[in-house]
């Protein structure tokens, strides 16, 4: 059974948010997207423990709290650490990749240049997570 996912997208770029939203509507997927423009906003959203997202899509390059810092905070939280977090970034910096997996991520996806390629990647990503069993608090 394909689950309806509640997705927290942490992304500061307005167009990137549009890209994800458009992709989901184009693909006619029934997922909910919660937007957070930066880490601080995201943490505020995550404070409501009764309405936590199923997965988090996280951009690395962000103002204020950057992706890796945010990831560390997440993983130090007894509840939040169970939410699968997938990095969605343009950076293919090996150091970042290594660091993210070290802290604990559920995936690391590089944003391709072409929009068509992006749609394919997101489709597969969401399909994968919608068939996964997730911890429900």
């Amino acid at each position, binding site marked *: 059974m394909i689950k309806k996912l509640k997705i927290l997208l942490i992304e500061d*770029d307005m*167009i*990137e948010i*549009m*890209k994800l939203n*458009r992709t989901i509507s184009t693909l006619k997927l029934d997922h909910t997207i919660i937007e957070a423009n930066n880490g601080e906003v995201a943490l505020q959203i995550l404070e409501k423990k009764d309405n936590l997202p199923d997965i988090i899509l996280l951009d*690395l*390059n962000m103002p204020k709290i950057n992706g890796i810092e945010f990831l560390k905070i997440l993983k130090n939280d007894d509840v939040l650490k169970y939410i699968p977090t997938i990095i969605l*970034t*343009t*950076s293919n*910096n090996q*150091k*970042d990749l290594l660091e993210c997996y070290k802290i604990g991520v559920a995936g690391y996806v590089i*944003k*391709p*240049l*072409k*929009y*068509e390629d*992006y749609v394919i990647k997101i489709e597969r990503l969401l399909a994968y997570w919608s068939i996964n069993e997730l911890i429900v608090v």
Partner: protein
Amino acid sequence: MSQDQSEILKRALTREKAARKAAEKILEEKSRELYFTSQRLEQLLDEKSSQLQGVFENIADAYVVMDLQGNVIKFNEAATKLFGYDVSIDKVNVTNLIYKEDYQYAMTSFYELYTKGFFKGYEARVYTKSKEVKWVHINASVIYDKDKKPVAAQGIVRDITNQKISEEKLIESENRLASLVVNLDSGVILEDENRKIVLTNNKFCELFGLKASPKDLIGLDCKAASEQNKILFKDPDGFLKQMRAIDEAKKEVLGDELEMVDGKILERNYTPIVLGQKSKGYLWTFKDVTLNRTYRKSLEAQKQKYYSIIANMNLGLVEVNNQDEILMVNQSFEQLSGYTEKELKGKNAGEIFSAETGSEIIKEENKKRQKGLSNSYEIKAKNKSGEIRYWLISGAPNYNLEGEVVGSIGIHLDITEIKNLELQKEKLLAKLEKSNDELQEYAHIVSHDLKSPLRSIYALVSWLKEDNQGKLDDVSLQNFALIESTLEKMEQLITDVLNYSSVGADNTAKSEVNLNTMVSELISMLYIPDHIHIKSLNTLPNINGDKTKLQQLFQNLISNAVKFIDKTEGHIIIDVEDLKSHYKFSIKDNGIGIDKKFHDKIFKIFHALNKSKDSTGIGLSIVKKIVNLHEGEIWLDSQPTVGTTFYFTLKK
């Protein structure tokens, strides 16, 4: 008969009677006289023989009488004592007494005794009863009876054993002395009162350059000889004058030094030899002391030399004893430390300069030196004005003549300046490393920030196309396509710049890379059109290097080759050649080729020769950078329209 006749006869008879009577009387007298004489003679003989008997019996020397077969008839007391036999009990034959080696000599002497009647001065060895060997001297003679027939032999035997031994000893010591004199390391010349040479030796002949042997010189006149030899000396007249003065004074002179023309220095001694009150001659000895003198001189010079080196060298020198107390410092050390030698003498070297760990190190190193180890180490020291200085100390144990460690000598070099530079260098390196890291980080951020807008533009263009599907004319669609390819090129450019800056930035550890596996994996990964064939002529070796970078190197070159093949049938040939320290690789294609004038340019960044969608002009710059990182070189051989071969070397 007539009266007359008878008268005459009567008278004659009477005369005759009277005459006979007178004769008888004379005879009687004579015979009486004779009797007395013989009586006296007999008495004399008796006296003589008893006298002789006493002589033989009592003489100190042994007296032996034997029969003609050599059987001893009589031994006097001395003989009994000498031979140990008592002839009244023992039966002794002289032939048994003869020492076996002297037998022949003894027989000859016996024969002489029997033929001539005596022998004299026989000297040989005999056995005594206790088998002791004794040297004896014998005079012997034959005893005859009244008919001149030999009946026995007698002899006087003297024990000369002691005399013989001392004689032998004398000869031996004389020989010894003679050979000693001959072989003496000093030239010796002994002259008599008339200055005639009595004795000299080899060394003398050698010292004076005489071709004669020492024996030939005996009897020569010393005075004349010295006048001939004077030319051998630097001061010939002085030599003679001195010699004459000594000769006249006849007093002992020791340690005179004479300098010879050939540079030799002789020490001359003069000793008069006096036996009792009588002068027996004069002994001159000459000894070559050149070596001693020059040795002493060169030692002095050597000492002076080292002394001035130590005093003037730009290195501080400190001598300490086993308790680390300063015994001596040189001038440079005074400048180095700020203390004078006076202030330092007797002070503990480790404590006086102590700064932090300085004295600990000194103690530790001193211990090692006690064991005879030489060492060098750096310490932090405090000079007199309290300034912290860095000293490089090279220490060595100091030994006395018995080979015991009595302390150590340390050479000090002030390396504060060098040390400061070193610390500065370390700081700079750390800083450089940090800024390199920052730069790397910066490159990633920049590339991210540049790439993000490209993605946005691409998405927006895609949406425009999507949302206006069927409303756009062909020119607009073409322009949209151009925007997209420009974006792709921009993306590639940013990727390449980032790659280029990454090469050489992160220093991943080198490891053994199997190029053969790596390249075949690479070929299967890359997009190779069907008309292009890639072939390796030889098995590629293992290289100590950075795997990711080596992969990038081959990838760039192979994809370059693929990219520029314009023939209907493409060939890429990979080969390797083993050079001593490097491997030489070649990648050959039959592509468009590169004009000679561009051969240098193509390795420079942003020098793409063919402006195309997928060529940014960075690929070969990256290749060159990677090759250089592996201590190799890259060059090419190419003919336009025919093909290109890239050669590069990598360190084994």
